[in-house]
Structures are given as C-alpha cells and as structure tokens.
C-alpha cells in the first residue's frame, strides 16, 4: 500500500512540475508549486507510517508553515508586479536576458 501512496505522490509532483513549466499565469504557476509541496507532504506522511516514526509528520507540518509563508510573499510579489506591469504572465518578466 505504501508504494501506491508514493507513486501517487510522484505523479502529483510530476504534474505540478509540468504545470510550473507550461503555465504562464504566475498565480497558476504558484498553485502548481503548492501542488508539488503537497505531493511531498503526502510522501512524508506515508513514510512516517511506514517507518513508525512521527518525524515525517513533523516535517510535513513544517513544510506547511513554510508553504504558508511562501504563499504570502509570493502573492505579494505577484500583486506588486501586476501593479507595475499590468500583467501576471511570467514571460513578461524576462528582463534578465539583457
């Protein structure tokens, strides 16, 4: 059963990764990142049960905290960028190539 959970986790992670690469809307990209984090959490929780240790759950808990903080900052950045550039597309912020 553990294997199934892990494969599900890997699948969700890969889907999230593809989403990050494919989507241009910064908010959706962000959602995909959240998806990847969630997939990781699932793996942690699964391993916690597999190994009979609470460490996995503790780490998943911390991941959630960090993810919350990340969302706050990330969305604030998106709003700021949108305010100045009138766009939420990640492709528009390509000034680094110059």
């Amino acid at each position, binding site marked *: *059963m*553990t*294997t*199934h*959970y892990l*494969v*599900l986790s*890997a*699948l*969700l*992670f*890969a*889907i*999230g*990764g*593809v*989403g990050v*690469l*494919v*989507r*241009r809307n910064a*908010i*959706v990209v*962000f*959602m*995909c990142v*959240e*998806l990847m984090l*969630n997939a990781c*959490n*699932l793996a942690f*929780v699964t391993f*916690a*049960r*597999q*190994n*009979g240790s*609470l460490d996995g*759950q*503790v780490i*998943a*808990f*911390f991941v*959630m*905290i*960090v*993810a*919350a*903080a*990340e*969302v*706050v*900052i990330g*969305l*604030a950045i998106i*709003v*700021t960028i949108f*305010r100045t550039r*009138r766009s*939420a597309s990640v492709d528009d912020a390509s000034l680094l190539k110059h």
Partner: protein
Amino acid sequence: MGESITFWVLAVVSVTAALGLVFSRRAVYSALMLGVVMISLAVLYAVQDAPFLAVVQIIVYTGAVMMLFLFVLMLVGVDSSDSLVETIKGQRFWAIVAGIGFAVLLGLGIGNVLLTAPKGLAGVTAAGNVPSLAEQIFTRHVFAFEVTSALLITAALGAMVLAHRERTESKPTQKQLSRARFLAFGKTGKNPAPLPGPGTYARHNSIDMPALLPDGAVSPLSVNRIIARHEAIEGTIDPEIARILQEEALAEQQAADTRPTKPLDDELGDTEPLADTEPLVEEDAK
C-alpha cells in the same frame, strides 16, 4: 480494504484534479481544482494516521492559502483567461517529456524498492496523535518551531512592505472631486450626478434589471455590464438594452479611445480612470 477503496477513489480524484489544475484555461478553475486536490490529500492524511495534519491541511491550505489565492485572483482579474498557446519554442514538448520521464523514473524507483508492511504509528502515538506530535514539536523540534515563528512574522512584514504603496500626492477631497466632475460635465457633457441605482422606477427590484428614467426610458448607466454580457450570451437580454449598449459601443469606437480597458479593482487601478459605466461601490459610498 476500506483504505484501499478510499485510496483508489481519492487517487483518481486527485490526479484528475491536478491535471485539471494544469490544463484549465481559467485561473479560478485551477484554484478550485487545487482545492479538490488538497481536500483529497487531507483525507489521505487522515487515513494514514495523521489526523492532525489532515485538519491543518484543511484549515491552513484549503482555508487560508486557497482563500489568499482566490483573493489575489480577484485583484488580478477573475475573469481573465490564459491563452494556452505556447510562445517559447519546444517548452511544452520538453516539459511534458521531462515530467513523464520524471514520474516514470520515480515510480519505477519506488516500485523497485521492496517495502515491508508499514510499521504503523501505534507505538509512537500511544498518547494520541496530537499530543504525541505536540510533544515532538515542542521538545525535539522546538528550535525549528521558534524559527518558523520568525519566518512567519518576516513573511507578514514582507507582504506588507511589498503591497504597500507610497502616496505621492494628497488624497483628493470631496470638494475637488465634485469640482472635477462638473468641469468634466462642462467639457464633455458627462452626467455629474450619481449613477442611478438598479431597479429604480423599475418593476423588479433586481440587479439585472435596468433603471428607468423619469420619462420611462431605460437608463443605460444603470446596467451592469457583466450581467449584460451574460444575458447577451444567453440571449435573455432586453432588446432595448442591447440596442443602447450597441450604440454606446459604436460611440466608443468612434471616439477611438485606444486606452486598454481591463476590469480593475480600484485598489489596483492607480492610473486608469474608471469607466463610469460600471456600477461603483465608491460612488454609492459618496
């Protein structure tokens, strides 16, 4: 057996929702799909002896984080939809190849590892899941926990700093606004009076009904544009309103106003004057 059924159902649901998240054109749908994935995962957590995390997942993710997402979507434009045409050459192809490759490799890797039956958490959660977890967090991981508090405070401050905008000129007073309205009336003939409320002099006190002027004519100003659009699509629009809106659109085209018109919240629209044809909460407040 019960776990297996739960897993398979939720696995299918969550993968489908994840794919929907990635491939839906509208951001709002993506957000909802993400919510589905998160709730599914919360259930999976609960199934795997992690009730506390399941609850936290619901409260923090599905509650707070998702709301934050939706709120920002509202700010950015809720009805904006992405074009799914790829602009970077080869990006989509390679992304999908890499994603499938990654998933397959990881899945094969995991499948190859011979795992024994799970030990279960019964041994370490004799006092119950939440007290045991609390004991772990407040003993072994207490420093990390304290650091996360610093992280969260920093994040809150950072968000405030990023979202904060310095006002470079004093806020216009009501007197100045009123003067500007009448100057505009003198120049362009734009009605300085407040917009009529919906349903004024109408038989229906409903937001989708246009207001009637004292002479019985329909006031285009009272028509909510978004609802009018919906009605136009559904074909339920009042023909008179449709005519008025068409006339307006023609007039606008003739005015050759090339300025981009994006649906903007006042919080964001700092440079563009708001189209006065839209019903504004602000106007009512005045």
